[in-house]
């Protein structure tokens, strides 16, 4: 099973990279960009066919290692 995990800074945390990209877009004349947030993307292949087990494992890995809960949030998708 493959997990796709998306890690982003929490909304309350300023994202300096996102801001810089947003300013670049404004300079490129895209006038309707309200916000850009940049994050991290992980693909984890698990040797596991049980979706509930895989989900529990990905949640645990995310909380322990992939994400710093002080500044980041995450979501994930599972694919067979």
């Amino acid at each position, binding site marked *: 099973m493959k997990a796709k995990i998306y890690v982003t*800074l929490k909304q*309350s*945390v*300023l994202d*300096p*990279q996102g801001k*810089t990209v947003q300013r670049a877009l404004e300079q490129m004349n895209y006038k309707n960009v309200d916000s850009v947030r940049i994050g*991290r993307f992980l693909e984890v292949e698990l040797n596991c066919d049980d979706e509930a087990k895989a989900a529990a494992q990905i949640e645990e890995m995310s909380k322990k*290692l*992939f994400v*710093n809960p*002080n*500044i980041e949030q995450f979501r994930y998708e599972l694919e067979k």
Partner: protein
Amino acid sequence: MKIGIVVFPGSNCDYDCLTSFSRLAKENGLTAEVGYVWHKESNPGTFDAYVLPGGFSYGDYLRCGAIARFSPIMEEVTAHAKKGRPVIGICNGFQILCESGLLPGALYMNRDLNFICEHVYLRTERNDTIFTSLCKSKEVLNIPIAHGEGNYYADDETLKKLEDEDLVAFRYCTGDGLVTPEVNPNGSRNNIAGIFNKERTILGMMPHPERAAEPGLGSSDGQKIIVSLLKNIAK
């Protein structure tokens, strides 16, 4: 006394810490055995203090300090810290202390996205700790920073707790000790450059006292922190 300088793959201030701590101990008439402790060590014996030096442990992969906190030595450092024994984390060491939960909050990319390597002024927020006892009240120290990810963040509740309990160790300030947004190099909340744990036995700081530990380095203000710690351990 025994001081352990923890070496992770990618640490690069370990030698600076080793030489400054051992030289300053000698100059102050203190007998100190200062040595390296490899990160894979899980039973290194007892130390009076651990130093987590600066650098780029594990290439800063994932997040600064995120992987280093799972090194075997960190279990030992955590057990040592929980007994109330001193730990100082400098730069990457501070990041590792936050990642491991020994200090609150987190360090992330600098506000302006630049790697900043320059001397800054720090206001010593309190001088009644084992790390700052040789500083005068609110003394301004000239110590360099060198980091890309030193932007200290803590949520409102954590920040209030740090302020209410006087756990901020150092703030970025002007040469006169004024804490202003203009002298905040990296966007850290409340200009925070370093913090203590509740018991003030753990110090995490982004600036490098070991790089300002002799006059030839442009400043010797960092000595005050290192010698404070050494003298307090020797007591």
